[in-house]
């Protein structure tokens, strides 16, 4: 004897509707989390100062196996060094093929600041401090430590998420300086020492075309990116579920999402700042 239950009316339509509603609710939940995090930042700095300072130290130096290879500072420096060296490798040779290799110093001053350093820094940040935050928060969520925090009366969003966002912004200031320095030095070393261009030629074009305004905008791009990257990563850590595998998956999903969001953000800020005219004069 089988008692089949009659299917509900409009089953398939209802299924599509429910799926749409779920994804819509997820976007809403995400937006609310970000608003809460941003609203909680003053509280995070004033009330949870110890945790905030601890996070700054931890993010700068990294933890576990990452601290062994030199921490976030060394990783960011290494990544921008390799991409800065591309200016020498690709730029010098490509310019030499059309007879303009003297302009490699200009390429370093122009492309490093506007394109290479923001792009590489965004990737490096989401891999190091971002993914680290997701892994920590995800493990806390799985072990029900976040619920425990709420029970003993600590505001978990302010204590865990907002502190991380502010700490990320503080840490990115020295990191950006290291990133730019490494990119410039790698480009100069590759061009003058390895490919043998006169350092006077290189320095002349580099100094002529290095614009401090561009550097400041590039720095603000990096700070804006850090805020977004840290918010995305803390959100995915906060909402991790599904045991050990869930934490790993959350880290992966957070890295993909934050890389895409950060790259869109770089383009938007670049288009807004440099605009149609380009804010650039060949005359210097």
């Amino acid at each position, binding site marked *: 004897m089988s008692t089949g239950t009659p299917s509900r009316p409009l089953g398939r339509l209802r299924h599509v509707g429910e799926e749409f509603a779920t994804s819509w609710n997820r976007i809403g939940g995400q937006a609310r989390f970000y608003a809460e995090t941003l609203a909680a930042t003053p509280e995070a700095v004033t009330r949870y100062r110890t945790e905030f300072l601890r996070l700054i130290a931890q993010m700068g130096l990294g933890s576990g196996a990452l601290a062994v290879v030199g921490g976030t500072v060394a990783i960011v420096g290494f990544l921008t060094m390799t991409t800065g060296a591309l200016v020498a490798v*690709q730029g010098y040779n490509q310019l030499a093929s059309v007879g303009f290799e003297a302009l490699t110093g200009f390429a370093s001053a122009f*492309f490093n600041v506007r394109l290479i350093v923001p792009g590489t820094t965004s990737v490096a940040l989401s891999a190091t401090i971002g993914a680290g935050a997701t892994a920590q928060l995800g493990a806390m969520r799985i072990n029900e430590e976040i619920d425990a925090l709420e029970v003993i009366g600590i505001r978990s969003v302010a204590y865990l998420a907002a502190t991380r966002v502010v700490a990320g912004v503080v840490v990115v200031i020295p990191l950006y300086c290291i990133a730019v320095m490494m990119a410039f030095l790698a480009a100069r070393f590759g061009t003058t020492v390895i490919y043998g261009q006169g350092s006077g030629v290189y320095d002349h074009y580099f100094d002529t075309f290095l614009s401090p305004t561009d550097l400041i905008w590039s720095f603000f791009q990096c700070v804006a990116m850090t805020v977004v990257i840290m918010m995305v990563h803390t959100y995915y850590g906060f909402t991790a579920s599904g045991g050990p595998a869930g934490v790993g998956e959350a880290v992966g999903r957070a890295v993909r999402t934050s*890389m895409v969001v950060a790259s869109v953000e770089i383009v938007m800020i670049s288009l807004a700042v*440099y605009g149609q005219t380009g804010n650039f004069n*060949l005359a210097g």
Partner: protein
Amino acid sequence: MAFVGTSVVAGDAMVMSAQTATLPVRAVGGFFAMSLDTFVLMFKRPFAWREYVIQTWFVARVSVVPALMLTMPYSVLLVFTFNILLNEFGAVDFSGTGAAVGTVNQIGPIVTVLVVSGAGATAMCADLGARTIRDELDALRVMGINPIQALVVPRVLAATTVALALSATVIIVGLAGAFMFCVFIQNVSPGAFISGLTLLTGFGDVVVSLTKATLFGLAAGLIACYKGVYVDGGPAGVGNAVNETVVFTFMVLFAINVIVTAVGIQFTVS
């Protein structure tokens, strides 16, 4: 045991500190040992075809959408920055040349790196790490199945296959994005853009670019599998392993990129 207690504790502490000090060295050694095992077992029957197909599909599924979403902004940013320069020279007709040089030689391989390690390798490491934590790999060994042959070899090959296929897709999409941006937003003539594409970029550049992508896939697959197989410490351990996978793959792949670019450019630029 009481009378030797202190010396045992002191000895333990020394062994512990020696273990901490040699940790990176042993990790590198373990990684190369596993890579060697993988290369040897790659040619040994039976090959895990089923796992290979499933993994290729899995890596492709998690990578394709982020790859396309990441290529568009980066190639638009590249042509935008490049066109500022070309506008100043009055040579905006060559924007296709700049787009081709940047996209084929750098944006294509680098976006493939980011996606293969950020999307593919993380998912792979999380999956393998979860299996290791639940002792499933030990269970395989008990049944006489070598987990390297059954799980690692197909995953490494899957990552390599997908990276190769992905880099081609990324280059096409990047060039299409650059075309749209230049022609419809910056009013470059479409014919000039297309004819400029092959001015400096030729067959050699495409070969170098695809070689890079293959190496990236191989390295990312090996690192992800190593981190996944040798994970410890519960849920936090898996999260940290995935984090370390991302960082180490980025570092290795960016280094490979510079080296292969420097070697390849000797052959492609005359």
